[in-house]
C-alpha cells in the first residue's frame, strides 16, 4: 500500500502539473479537493482518466467518485480493492 501511495503521488503531481509540489508535501490523508490540495472539477476529470489509463479502472457510478477521490489513501484503497495494485 505504501509503495502504491508514493507512486500515486508522483503520477498525480505529473498529471495535474502541480509545479513546486513534491510527493513529501502531500500527506496520504490530506483532502484532495476544497481544503488541502485545492483541486477542482477539471482535476477530477484528469484523475478519472489517470485511473482508467494507468490502472484499467472505470468509475461506473459518479456518486462513488467523491468517496474514491477524497484522499490519496482512498484512491490507493480503491485500486487495491479492485485488484489492480
Amino acid at each position, binding site marked *: 500500500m505504501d509503495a502504491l501511495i508514493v507512486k500515486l503521488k508522483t503520477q498525480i503531481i505529473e498529471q495535474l*502539473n502541480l509545479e513546486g509540489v513534491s510527493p513529501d508535501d502531500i500527506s496520504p490523508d490530506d483532502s484532495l479537493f476544497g481544503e488541502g490540495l*485545492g483541486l477542482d472539477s*477539471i482535476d477530477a476529470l484528469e484523475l478519472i482518466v489517470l485511473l*482508467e489509463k494507468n490502472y484499467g479502472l472505470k468509475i461506473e457510478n459518479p456518486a462513488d467518485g467523491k468517496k474514491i477521490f477524497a484522499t490519496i489513501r482512498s484512491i490507493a484503497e480503491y485500486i487495491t480493492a479492485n485488484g489492480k495494485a
Partner: protein
Amino acid sequence: MKAYIRGIGQISPQQTFAKDDFLDTVVGYNTNMLFCIDPVYKEFINPLQLRRMSRTLRMGVTAAKICLTDSGIEMPDAVITGTGFGCIEDTEKFLLAMLNNNEQQLTPTAFMQSTHNTISGQVAIMLKCKEYNSTYVNRGFSFETALLDSLMLIAEGNAHKILLGGFDENSVNLHVTTERLGHWKKEKINSLQLLESKTSGTISGEGATFFMLTDKEDVNNYALLKGLSTLYKPENEKEVEQHTIDFLKRNNLSAADIDLVVCGLNGDVRTDGVYYHLRDKLFAETAGAYFKHLCGDYYTSSAFALWLSANAIKKQVVPEAVRLGKSPAAALKNILIVNHYRDINYSFMLVSQC
C-alpha cells in the same frame, strides 16, 4: 483612423519583458527555431492558475499583464487579439493523445486550451472584463485585422481603451512540417547574421505582444498609430511601391517625411528583394531597421515591429542591433513599418510622435 499607444508588454526571444531594457543586449541563436525567453511567470500569474496553463497561454497572459501595468489602465473596453496558429502546442497535444489512446481516455485541459481565443478569454476572465472580446485568425493578417478592428472601434467611439494583442508560438512539429514546405533555411545560421546568409528560407520564431490603445492624449503615451494598410499578394515590387506612396499620401506624408523604415527583412533571398526595391526607389536617404533576426518569422511578427517602433519613438533611440544602412535622424517623428509574410500578406503601419 488613429490611436495612441499607452502601454506595451512583450514576451519574445529577447529580454523584451524588462521595461528598461530596450534591446541593449540581444541574444543570438545558433538554431533556425527561436523560442521566447521566459520571465518568472509566478511573478505575474497565480500559481494555481499557472499550473494548468500551456506555454503560449503563459506568454500571452503575462504580456497582457505587463501591458496593463505599463499603461496604468486596469479595465479595458475591449480585448482583441490576432493569431495565426493559436495555441498550437495544445492542439498537437490533444490530437496526439487521441491517436495514441485510440480516441479514449482523453483529458480536458489541452482540448479546452487549444482554441485560438484561449488567451483573450483568459485575459477577460482574469480581469472580469465582460466587454467586447474578439480573436482574429487570418494567417499573415491576423494581427493587422485585430488592429484594424481596434482602430475602427476607437474611430466610431465604441471603445476608448483597447487591449490589443498579437501572439504565435513555435513548436518542433510545426517547424518540421513547414520546413518540408521550404519555409526555413536548410543550413544552421547564427540568427544575428540572418541577412548575411543569402540563401532561401528564414528562421522560425514566436512572440506575444500586447498594446493598450486609447483615444486620449497623455504624456505617458508611447506614440500615435496614425495609419494601417494591408496588401494581399501584390503582383510585383512596383505595386508595393505604389501602395506605399498612396498610403503615405493618405496620411498627408511623403517618403521624405519618414525618419525610419522598419522592414520585415528575414534573410530569404526569394522574398527580401521588395524591401531593397523600396529602399532604392523611395527611401535611399532614410535610415532603416529590421527585426526578424531577433524574433524569427511568424504570422504575427508585425506586432514585434510595432513594439520596436513605439519604443523607438518614445525613447528617441534606434537600438544598434536593429539598425540598417544610414544612421537614424536626430529626431524620430515618423516611422513606417513595412512587413510581409511569405510575399503574401503585406502590411504598412505609420507610427508618429504624439
